[in-house]
């Protein structure tokens, strides 16, 4: 496979030594800037909320992570549909990368929500609609990653994952509705997961800068994860090529003896 001809071709542009590029470095820097602003305003500058007190500072983390998670799951769903249509590695890798990032952000969201509950209600968990929905959806997408982790032919694995990605995403609004109705019987609306319109200027600024930071970090992670996934595929192709090569070398004398 690898000959001197391909080597000479590759020397023209320098091959990257990692998943970074100029684009991701710029994006990362902007994300970092927003993160610094979010820390400054969210933790230090903005005043406590009239109703929520200082617990609003947990909401500054909770809302961006949940938004980033939903963005990631949306990307997974679109990629799943596109994969079944176009059947290209790009959509498969994008979808699975986004699912992994979505699970990460959802897990963080739930921990943040539980900590908010500890302060507000005195217990980590109440069957608050948003938290309950998140828990169900988190486990649903852990299932996606579990199937993804099963070694299989890339095309087979991609199809399986695309199907799960589509089946899972249409459940999101249904779970929302069911949990809302269910909890609606027992308690009123809660603040978790919504942006209160009565927030003051610096509070809104803290919230929106955290939100922008969350989205940017999500996209930045997605690019890196996509590239790492692409490299992993090439590495496993390589392993397969090598194994085939070895098998051929092993079996060729035996074949010769047979014939």
């Amino acid at each position, binding site marked *: 496979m690898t000959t001197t001809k391909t080597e000479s071709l*590759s020397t023209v542009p320098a*091959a990257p030594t990692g998943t970074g590029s100029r684009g991701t470095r710029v994006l990362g820097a902007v994300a970092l800037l927003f993160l610094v602003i979010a820390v400054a305003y969210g*933790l230090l500058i903005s005043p406590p909320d009239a109703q929520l007190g200082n*617990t609003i500072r*947990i909401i500054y983390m909770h809302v961006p*992570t949940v938004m980033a998670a939903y963005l990631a799951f949306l990307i997974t769903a679109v990629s799943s549909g596109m994969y079944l249509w176009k059947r290209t590695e790009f959509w498969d890798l994008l979808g699975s990368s986004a699912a992994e990032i979505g699970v990460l952000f959802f897990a963080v969201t739930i921990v943040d929500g539980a900590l908010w509950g500890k302060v507000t209600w005195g217990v980590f968990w109440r069957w608050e609609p948003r938290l309950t929905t998140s828990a169900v959806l988190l486990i649903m997408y852990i299932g996606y990653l579990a199937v993804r982790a099963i070694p299989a032919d890339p095309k087979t694995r991609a199809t399986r994952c695309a199907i799960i990605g589509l089946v899972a995403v249409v459940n999101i609004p249904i779970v929302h509705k069911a949990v809302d109705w269910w909890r609606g019987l027992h308690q009123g609306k809660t603040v978790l997961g919504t942006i209160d319109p009565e927030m003051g200027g610096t509070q809104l600024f803290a919230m929106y800068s955290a939100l922008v930071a969350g989205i940017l970090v999500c996209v930045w*992670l997605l690019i890196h994860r*996509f590239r790492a996934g692409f*490299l992993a595929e090439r*590495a496993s192709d390589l392993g397969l090529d090598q194994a085939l090569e070895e098998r051929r070398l092993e079996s060729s004398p035996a074949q010769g003896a047979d014939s």
Partner: protein
Amino acid sequence: MSGASMTETLCIIGAWLVTFGAVGAYAASVILRGRRLSKIVPPEQRRWM
């Protein structure tokens, strides 16, 4: 009162630490994985479409 505000402070700091810690650790693992894989994959295949 001081116990309650103690819990509050701990939970707020905890939430921010968990968020930054988890996302940071994941980012580091992805970037390190990318670097490790880049050493294995031949340069002409190190192109992401």
